[in-house]
């Protein structure tokens, strides 16, 4: 699926993820790795939880509070990486980082998340857009998975 640039559509996508986020709310079950990240300067606060089986991300949850860009982005992230292999999820993560730092937009990989492309023009907000992705990245990093089961608290 690919989108042509349509501002009205992007606005709807962002507001939709902001107001009715996907995969929101954490679960209390074994086998999940949870990472909690905060942006102390603005108060954004994000937890991301993943379950990985045989190199595939079987479930992703997130919970937190923050601005529209932070919350909508975390919801889009969860939608994008659910059911993906770790390699594919990493590629999407990289595509997202590239987009918000103005290094090209991969519509194939980013799907609805291309609605956030305007963040590239707002340097102070890049941190908002990437907070959920950063937390996700840590949940699947080798070290975090090795110490799994516990909750890792990290302050950015």
């Amino acid at each position, binding site marked *: 699926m690919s989108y042509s640039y349509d501002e009205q559509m992007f606005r709807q996508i962002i507001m939709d993820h902001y107001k009715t986020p996907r995969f929101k709310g954490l679960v209390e079950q074994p086998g999940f790795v949870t990472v909690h990240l905060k942006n102390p300067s603005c108060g954004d606060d994000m937890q991301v939880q993943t379950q990985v089986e045989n190199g595939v991300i079987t479930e992703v949850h997130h919970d937190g509070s923050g601005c529209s860009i932070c919350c909508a982005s975390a919801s889009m992230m969860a939608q994008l990486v659910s059911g993906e292999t770790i390699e594919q999820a990493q590629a999407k993560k990289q595509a997202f980082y590239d987009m918000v730092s103005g290094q090209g937009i991969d519509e194939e990989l980013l799907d609805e998340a291309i609605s956030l492309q305007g963040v590239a023009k707002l340097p102070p907000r890049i941190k*908002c857009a990437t907070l959920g992705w950063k937390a996700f990245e840590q949940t699947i990093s080798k070290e975090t998975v090795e110490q799994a089961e516990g909750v890792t608290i990290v302050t950015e």
Partner: protein
Amino acid sequence: MYNTDWTKDFPILNQEMNGKAFVYLDSAATSLTPEVVLEKMNEYYREYGVNVHRGVYAMGAKADGEFESVRDQVQKFIKASSREEIVFTRGTTTAINMVAFGYVLPKLQAGDEIVTSMSEHHANFVPWQVVAQKAGATLKFAPLDANGAVTPAALQSVMSEKTRFVALNHMSNVMSALNDVQALSRVTHEFGAEILIDGAQAVPHLSIDVQAIDCDFYAFSGHKMFGPTGVGVLYGKYACLQAMEPFEYGGAMIDQVQQFTTSYKDAPYRFESGTPMIAEVIGLGAAITYLEKIGYATIQTQIETLREYAIQQLEQLEQVEIYNPHNHEAATIAFNIKDVHSHDAVTVYDLEGVAIRAGHLCAQPLLSEIHQGSILRMSLQVYNTKADIDRFIAATKKASDFLDVLFL
């Protein structure tokens, strides 16, 4: 009614932000620096930029003279009884830590109590948490009134014979509520305790008389009162300073160094180790001169006029919620826009060229008191104009359409 005489003294106000003329409404975070202060610091580096307290040559004496004359100036500025009661520090945060770790902690015993409040800046909050934890002491909180102030009765309600130390602000940094610090000092002393006043937000707006207040310590920062960053002041009653342990050891603070023991200078020099922030202290002196030239009366009238106008405009916008409408001495307006996260809003202001603050404002305890995770704060100084407020209000009206910033 509106005075624009001072705006031209601040070169940064000729800048643009995001292609719009720069409107600065974040002076409570740091004030802008006037040309005269920049000049004075430049002059030090260009004309006599050598070390102080060391050189026996003429230029060193010149630097010494300029540096030490600021101590006299600060003494008069806050009406301390002697110049030796003025310690130059890196800022308010450092000053408070010096007192917490050099004065209070060594005397503190398990079971003692320290009193502070939920409206303190983290600088006057976290050090007391740490000191209390280290000593096994208890931290107590004087309750706030509806405007965010600590009344003498509120302080009295948490004082006991176990209270050793009280640390409160003169003016808070979010609500800008003004505390009657003279009465708070009186209550503290009635219980045989001592008090530090965090004056970081008060000094830019009110004339200070530490002897009338009768506080034991008073701390403030140069950068919030037209001075440079990296310099602040700790005032302490001389007996208190003499009883305080140094926080940092090294050159300049010593009297005599032997192989195994060292004796130290008397206060305040004992607390000024190493090469001090010479240009910054000299710049602070120029800032005090500048502030006194304008006069507190002018600053207060200007800010009050602008603030009343801004409040009046904001109150017409039903989406705006103001948290400190009745703090008339305040230089800040703490507010939120309904259904808009403060960080979404602040980008709208940013793109309109208007600098205001968003987030927890280094006052998470206070925000939890008013049940907000984050807020917006605009703050005023004498260089602001009615046109600034108009730009601010125009941006406020746009803030509900916060996604627009992604599609410009």
